[in-house]
Every structure is written in C-alpha cells, then in structure tokens.
C-alpha cells in the first residue's frame, strides 16, 4: 500500500459516518445561551455596582479587600476565593465561568501576603528571560483541580524571594476559542521591577512528545 492507499483506506472507512444533530437544535441552543448571556451581563453589572457600593460604605480604607480580619484573609466571591491557612500558605480558587475583577483579586492577594499582578486575556513575560524565576516558582506555587472543575492554587508566600511578584495571566471562557493552545491560566515569578513584554494572544502550550 502506498501513502495514498493508506489515507484513502482511512477516508473510506469513515464514509458512512454522518452527523445526525439537526441544525435547528444547534440554533435553539445558541439562542438560549445568548439570552442567558445577556441576562447574566445585566445581573453581573448590578452585582458589581452593589459590591462597589458595599466597599465604599463599609471599608474604612479605600484599597482594602472585601473581607479581611487581622492577618487572616478569607474572601469568597463568585469569581474567586482566597483563604490564608494555618501553615502560612494561601489557597486560591478560581471559577472560570464568572467574570473576575483583576484589581480586587490583586488587592486580596496582597492582603494575604502575595504580591501579584493579574491580567485578563493578556499574558506577560519578563523581557529578559533570565528574570523568569522558574526554579523559585516551583517552590511558591502548587496547583490542582477540584472535581467540580474549579482551579485551586496553593501559594507559599514565604518561599517568594524578596522583591518578587507573581504575574498571572487568565483567559476568560470563549476568548480565542480557535487558538490551538488549551491554556487557561499562565503564571510566572519575576522581580518587582522586571520590564515585561505582553501579548493578547493565548501563549502556546509548552511542547510535548505526543
């Protein structure tokens, strides 16, 4: 068998495979999601306004995170949660489906002892590759996923070298859906003053053998 014969055999073997889903079903599903999205945007805008008002009324400090008591931080919002743990680590959970305000998350992490710079659909890396502190990063961040699909990170602030910060780039649902990269969140550890180069294209997944 030459190459064309092999590929022809593959093609022929699938000749009887047909898509059975009617187009009306797809369109109905798309319309329904569009309606939910519009309704969700309206509710989200109302909630965001409510949260902003709550912060303005309840918080004595303008830049304080939503909830903080002493050195302990336990902030639970629709988009993310941050909890300090007794061993000094910080657990961060992110729910991708919700829109996330990077400034609120950044302030909350800072309160928990984690200096961070958060961007949405924008990814940065140090212009000088030697400032990408990957070895230290491995000691600082452990991650995982819960059964419900929620992303979980356990950050050890004490393992961060002085004058460094985490840079975290997040991808919202539906952003560049045709990108070959499946990455949702990209994190790096860099010096505070490291010049950064940023892009709005989802970074490629690191090469693998498969």
């Amino acid at each position, binding site marked *: *068998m030459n*190459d064309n014969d*092999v*590929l022809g*055999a*593959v*093609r022929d*073997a*699938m000749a*009887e*495979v*047909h*898509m*059975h*889903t009617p*187009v009306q*079903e*797809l*369109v109905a*599903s*798309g319309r329904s*999601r*569009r309606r939910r999205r519009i309704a969700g945007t309206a509710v989200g805008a109302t909630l965001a306004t409510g949260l902003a008002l709550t912060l303005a009324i309840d918080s004595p400090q303008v830049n304080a995170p939503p909830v903080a008591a002493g050195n302990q931080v336990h902030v639970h919002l629709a988009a993310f949660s941050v909890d300090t743990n007794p061993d000094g680590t910080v657990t961060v959970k992110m729910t991708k489906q919700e829109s996330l305000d990077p400034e609120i998350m950044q302030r909350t992490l800072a309160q928990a002892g984690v200096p961070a710079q958060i961007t949405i659909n924008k990814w940065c890396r140090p212009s000088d590759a030697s400032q990408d502190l990957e070895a230290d990063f491995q000691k600082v961040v452990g991650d995982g*996923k819960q*059964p419900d*699909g929620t992303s979980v990170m356990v950050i050890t602030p004490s393992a961060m070298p002085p004058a460094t910060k985490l840079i975290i780039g997040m991808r919202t649902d*539906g952003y560049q*859906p*045709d*990108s*070959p*990269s*499946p990455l949702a969140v990209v994190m790096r550890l860099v010096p505070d003053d490291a010049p950064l180069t940023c892009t709005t294209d989802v970074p*490629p*997944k690191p090469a693998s*053998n*498969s």
Partner: protein
Amino acid sequence: MEHLEFEEFYQESRDACLRAVLATTGDRQLAEDLVAEAFTRAWMSWRKVSRHPAPHAWIVRVALNTRVTWWRRRRHEVALGGHDAVDPSAADGADVDPALLVALRRLPRRQREVVALRVFLDLDTDTAARTLGIAPGTVTAHLSRAVAALRGDLATVNSQEANGERQ
C-alpha cells in the same frame, strides 16, 4: 441571510468535521457532542467565524479544545470512582470500521490530529500547521509516521481477513 449561510455551512461541512473529530477522539458519541458544541459556538459568533479562512478547521479546533476540558473533568471523576480506563467497546460506533478506530487509537494524539485535518478536512500542510499551532515540517513528519504505523496495522487486518476467508 446569516442563518441561511450558517445552515448551508453546517450541511456542507458537518460530516467532514465529525469524521475528523472522531478520528482524533475514537468515540462516536463524544465526537458528535463535541462537533455539535463547536457548531453552536460558531452560530453564536457566525460573523467572525464566517470570515475565518478555514471555518471547518475552526470547528474542529474548537471541538478538540472542548475535548481537553471535558476529558480532564471526566478523568478526575473517573479516578475518584476507582476506574482508570474508558471501556473501549463503548467507544465504537456502528457506522465506522472498528479496526480503523483501533489503529487510530494506537497513534499519538498529535498524529491523529494531523491525519484528521489532512484526510477529512483536506487541509494543506500550512493550514493544518496553523490550525494545530505547530510548524509545517512537524505536520509532515507526524503524517509520515502516522501513515507508516497505519500501513502496518491495516495490512495486518487485511491479511487476517484474507486468512479468515480461506478457512
């Protein structure tokens, strides 16, 4: 007008997209679900997708990206239940040669994706490379390795069938 365009695109490309995704996933029902999901997203962003240089490649790319998320969720849930493997018999469809699915499943994922795009979507090397985010030379190398492996598997199947007919 837009709806008619989308419907026409769906009728023309749905089977090819399904075959491409089936060749990659090896699971008939999952492939149909993923392709339906990708077409639904295409309908929601039809103005953008209709201007894509290869909209059927967009569909397959989105279906396979969705697969990554679903697979991760399923793997986690399966691991908690104490089962590590998907039942292969449940993955086969009645309308596809099971020997071919077995041969495709033996290929590494990237090789399956290259075969899917080149054979079922008839993409040229450069478009397949852009769709997968890899170099054109890598597409050629993957296709060459995949064809070599498939040739061996398909020759074995043919030889077994010939022996069976003689007995």
